[in-house]
């Protein structure tokens, strides 16, 4: 019975069925399963499979997004039940597009993928001043600042974010950058901690940064 519910949640998340995921999680909680168990036995492994299938080209972005939505819906139900040891998410990320840049598709994609991977994401939206990123990171005690840019003109402000983090002496806050014009050389040039080639790589890099 318990195994059945776990399997139902797992399948609902893999298939991106939001309502089914929610009702299965509610059933699981009603039947006395611990929130941690539901998270560890179904949600995380479901999203792992989704990530793996996406990486292999078996499923596509819209499908990943709906799986992430199902995961989020499940998490919303589980959160009140987590014991204090799990009050903190796997990590907290402040994300936004660089100053002057209002292109946010890439940023939205990364935000959703991060949420899908269990991160708490604070999305500052578009055209974010370097100060905006850093203030929010301090206020929220975030682990990572993620900055996205599409334009070669706006990517320059990514360097300002890095300088400001150093200026404010926040060694625990990592800066990751991404977007079409960004590459490894630029990342090194401005002294950012990492850059993501695409959304999946961005999530991978954030995980790496936090496991160091």
């Amino acid at each position: 019975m318990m195994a059945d519910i776990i399997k139902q949640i797992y399948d609902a998340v893999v298939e991106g069925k939001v309502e089914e995921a929610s009702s299965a999680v509610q059933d699981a909680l009603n039947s006395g399963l611990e929130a941690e168990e539901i998270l560890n036995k179904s949600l995380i492994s479901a999203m792992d499979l989704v990530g793996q299938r996406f990486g292999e080209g078996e499923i596509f972005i819209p499908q990943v997004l709906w799986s992430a939505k199902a995961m989020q819906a499940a998490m919303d139900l589980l959160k009140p039940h987590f014991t204090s040891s799990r009050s903190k998410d796997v990590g907290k990320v402040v994300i936004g597009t660089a100053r002057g840049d209002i292109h946010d598709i890439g940023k939205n994609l990364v935000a959703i993928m991060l949420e899908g991977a269990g991160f708490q994401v604070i999305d500052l939206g578009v055209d974010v001043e370097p100060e905006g990123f850093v203030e929010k990171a301090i206020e929220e005690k975030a682990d990572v600042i993620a900055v996205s840019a599409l334009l070669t003109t706006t990517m320059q402000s990514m360097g300002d974010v890095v300088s400001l983090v150093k200026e404010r002496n926040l060694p625990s806050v990592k800066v990751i950058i991404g977007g079409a014009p960004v590459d490894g050389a630029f990342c090194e040039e401005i002294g950012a901690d990492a850059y993501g080639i695409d959304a999946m790589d961005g999530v991978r890099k954030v995980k790496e940064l936090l496991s160091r």
Partner: protein
Amino acid sequence: METSLNHLCVPRFELLDESQILRLHHAALRILGEVGVKVNHQRAVDLLAGHGAKVDADNIVKIPQFLVEEAIRSAPSDLIIYNRKKEPVMELGGKRIYFGTGTDLPKTIDLVTRKVRDTTSDDVILSTIISDAMPDIDFIGSFGLPKDIRPGLHYIKCFELEVRNSAKPIFFTAGSEKDLNVILDMASTVAGGDEELSRFPFLIHYSEPTSPLTHSKEALAKLLLCSERKIPVNYTPALLAGSTGPVTLAGSLGVAVAEALSGLVIHQLANRGSPIITGVAATAMDMLHATVSYSAPEFRLTHSAYAELFHYYNLPIWGTAGCSDAQFPDLQAGAEYGFSLLSAALDGANLIHDCGYLGQGFIASPEMIVFANEVIGMVKRYLSGFSIDDAHLALDVVRSVGPGGHFLGEKHTLDFFKQEHWRPSLFNRENLPNWIKKGSKTLDQKLVEKALEISKTHKPEPLSSTVSEELDRIWDKISSQMEK
């Protein structure tokens, strides 16, 4: 003579019937009236509000039908673009087609090392010289975005290098109103004053709204500046079906057309009759790689559809072709160039840009400009069709040669072979033994050789020394200001 016969047989393409064109038009009007567009520029909001548009919270502006239809009427339907020497070289309107490169490619495939590297200002000079030498490249863009020039100055430098290295019309971008003003000062210097520049425009500025349904402050500042100074401007959205627009092509077209039309309204309200080139780019986002496809077949469908809609409006329109998602000049690039150039030409788009693009709008390939030129020649020959009049049917020649003879020695053959048959300049037509004898060269080798040869031998017409010195002075002034 036979009186009712149309002698010319030309390939034609039609995607939409009139009721389908109107359906799209009405969808765009409903989006503008019911959903509205976000207008992040106060003067543009004031202009719209002052003429009957409704402004909601957060500068969401709902534009009534009559404003859109007035703008379609007040914008010029036929736009003459001159070269640097004030000779009319492009008549944008109707189904006249012109081709050119584009702007802002951060990477370049080096002609010598064949490696992808950062674009430099030398690449801007090279692509300008190649474009100048190519007979079927009608206008030039910076092609690359030079890494060796600091942001804020790089668009100014690009324009300066282009105008020095070609007399052809220039299609250009700018970061903001600030560098646009400097570029226009340079252009005015070349033309001999602002009035001469607006009389004989040899340049077209590119600015764009941001999908979905947003006009950024910078884009509008540039649009308004061009409108006021009567500088031709190309204001067209680049929408991605499935991410910045609905996943369906019809839905994407509705949104993109609404974006283009709202830009047209703002542009015309600022200065009625000012020159503008409009249209859209609506392609598919690749749902596996989250990349922008420059060569999706869906892009060709939306291109044909908006082209027919904007021809219906009788407005000059832009186009996109001669570009590829391939990262290198390979077979994929060849197929995508051929398909897109033919399709855009059949659409009758006026200002067809992006020739020479690889890597989904990130990589400049100088030799692919040469390739595009070759394909354009082929496409133009195909589109010019053939005549079926008596001289071309040539029944008298057939009678005189008769069965079993040959036509090679006929005067008719001599008279017509040049105009009737297209001759490639680089595509192979040699037989096998001759091809081997001449080094078994494949097209990609010949393209690189040709591009290198042009770079060494082609000498563009220089600017007068007075103008040249004045450009130096403008550059020195702005670059020293920026260094401070």
